[in-house]
């Protein structure tokens, strides 16, 4: 990939949320390291799929990329423009080039706005389309693109079905003519039959409009269907990144192997015989992540003492990037999986001492 093909480049992005205690005066007692050092690049016109279990920080990463959650450290460059240091009004102007689709189409639409008002808001904010007629024309075209009827305009979100609401959410993102769309679990709140429609719609829109997607999901099948590149996150960091199908056929990181072995195969004979890797224990607390490799507490291939001492960085193996010290030796079968003893996860809040990083402001803690 040459540099001009890259639309988004994220370098060592960190998002830490302070854990606050105290009655009168807030005292920071630790940080939830939701995203802890992520590097990724998204090529123009391609789809980057991000998977991982609940609480691994994938949504936070998506929001931090759009500067909706202020990152604690790291850089996000969008088409060559550094977003983390951009002045607020310039950032607001940039926002029309990068949009977001939300998981819950009901709560992401203002219940008191009708559809026309929802779709006009962005246009007004960015001064696109001078007159009411011009805006109506843009909105009508967008409605056609997402397959919604015209009469939708005067209606309110609660009058639509889940799939239609998600189309409204997509229309709102599209109306500004963005280049990048971050889709945070775009179909997980929908019925399976509707999921396919919405996924196909996203696919068609990418073809006709040349959009770049960052699709965040926990559904491996959905991600496989639409992604060119798939990244797997575990506890705030990428553990593996590979071209779409390759990740599914040839997972290299132990966590990815476990993830893939959880996907059922639609053939009872194969399903009965295939190897399944069950992970022991729970996801460690992101306020107190394990030292060394984040995954070593649950990894069936973990080797003493390197896995517990040294945090692996992403390195290239073939077309993939893997953060595992022993990926090759696991792939060749030289290392065999062993039993893992369950480690008790420390309850949230009993985190480490506050470190020196500046605390980002985060809604949710009020005096």
């Amino acid at each position: 990939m040459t540099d001009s093909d890259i639309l988004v480049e994220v370098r060592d992005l960190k998002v830490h949320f302070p854990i606050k205690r105290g009655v009168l005066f807030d005292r920071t007692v630790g940080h939830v390291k939701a995203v802890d050092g992520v590097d990724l690049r998204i090529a123009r016109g391609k789809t980057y799929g991000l998977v991982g279990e609940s609480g691994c920080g994938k949504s936070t990463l998506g929001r931090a990329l759009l500067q909706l959650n202020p990152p604690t450290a790291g850089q996000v460059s969008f088409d060559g423009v550094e977003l983390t240091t951009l002045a607020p009004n310039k950032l607001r102007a940039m926002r029309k080039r990068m949009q977001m689709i939300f998981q819950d189409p009901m709560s992401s639409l203002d219940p008191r706005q009708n559809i026309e008002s929802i779709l006009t808001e962005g246009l007004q904010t960015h001064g696109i389309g001078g007159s009411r007629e011009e805006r109506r024309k843009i909105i009508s075209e967008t409605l056609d693109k997402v397959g919604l009827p015209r009469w939708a305009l005067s209606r309110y979100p609660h009058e639509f079905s889940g799939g239609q609401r998600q189309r409204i959410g997509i229309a709102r993102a599209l109306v500004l003519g963005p280049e990048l769309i971050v889709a945070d679990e775009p179909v997980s709140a929908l019925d399976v039959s509707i999921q396919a429609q919405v996924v196909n719609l996203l696919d068609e829109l990418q073809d006709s409009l040349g959009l770049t997607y960052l699709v965040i999901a926990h559904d491996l099948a959905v991600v496989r269907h639409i992604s060119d590149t798939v990244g797997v996150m575990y506890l705030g960091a990428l553990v593996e990144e590979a071209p779409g199908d390759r990740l599914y056929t040839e997972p290299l990181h132990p966590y990815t192997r476990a993830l893939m072995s959880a996907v059922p195969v639609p053939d009872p004979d194969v399903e009965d015989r295939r190897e399944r890797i069950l992970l022991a224990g729970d996801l460690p607390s992101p306020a107190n992540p394990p030292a060394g490799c984040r995954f070593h507490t649950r990894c069936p291939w973990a080797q003493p003492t390197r896995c517990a001492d040294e945090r692996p960085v992403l390195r290239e193996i073939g077309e993939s990037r893997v953060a595992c010290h022993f990926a090759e030796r696991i792939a060749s079968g030289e290392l065999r999986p062993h039993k893992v003893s369950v480690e008790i996860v420390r309850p949230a809040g009993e985190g480490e001492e506050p470190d020196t990083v500046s605390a980002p402001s985060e809604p949710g803690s009020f005096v």
Partner: protein
Amino acid sequence: MTIISGKKREKIDRLAELAAREDERGVSLWQDAFRRLRRNPAAIVGAVILAIFVLVAIFGPFFVPYGPKDTMGIREGVVKVGQGLIPGPSSEHWLGYDHQGRDVFSRMIIGARQTLLVGVVATLIGLALGALIGGVAGAAAGLGGRWGRMVDATLMRFIDMLLALPSLLLAVSIAALLGPSLITVMIAVGMVSVPIFARLLRGSMIVQSNKEYVLASTSLGVSKSRIALAHVLPNSLAPVIVQATLTLATAIIEAAALSYLGLGNPDSSVPEWGVMLADAQPWLGIRPALAIYPAVAIIITALGFTLLGEAMREALDPKLRK
């Protein structure tokens, strides 16, 4: 053949359905709430009580048979307080005389206007001040980041101070500070409801600020002040409106209580239900009805506001929507 005609019929039906929907406009949440309100019997009862009360308060004083300060009973020698003689209802005086020989019916009707005025103005004072403080605090806390939370904390400490005092004590202190008058009663009762409105609107706005549609607007590039005014505030108003209706009921009762304690209009010849209740106290043994009339009127009015307020709460609750 039948399959094709069946498909055709389906298609025509769907077209007809679409055509029918096209000219029907969308139903906003307020319209929807109003629709449900009309179907609630409690709301109808409350609304009828309030309609009668408001009509009497506005137009009643033009039709009263006697002047409210006319001590005709003493002049005509029918009322002799010293002998315990206060005549009850008659065909000329429907609710009888009071201890000064005035016509109770006329005084009740003119008192309705005073009572409504006190209730409405007191609630408006509380609503305006409370919504202002709560709105600023809520918007600051929800959207303003670190500085916003400091603004919010400062405003809320002030509200907590108001909230720490028992409401009647606060009202009595304000009334004592400003001297007894009808306006004092309005201000005192209004101030008591300020913290309620402020905390309610602030809490509601903070909840709304954390909704995804606020994040969606932020990602569209909409400015924070516009998000606060166009999205967060309208979605936070429902509980405040319900509270305002309920506060009208308590304001009338509290105003009556203050008048009863002698902190209302010092000129007790101007009728007001609370004052009438206080005036009737010495004569409870002779004619308890003098106290019962205003008491029942206060209770029924407060009931009307409460019924309507509770029905509105139900109608506006999104969880109960079908």
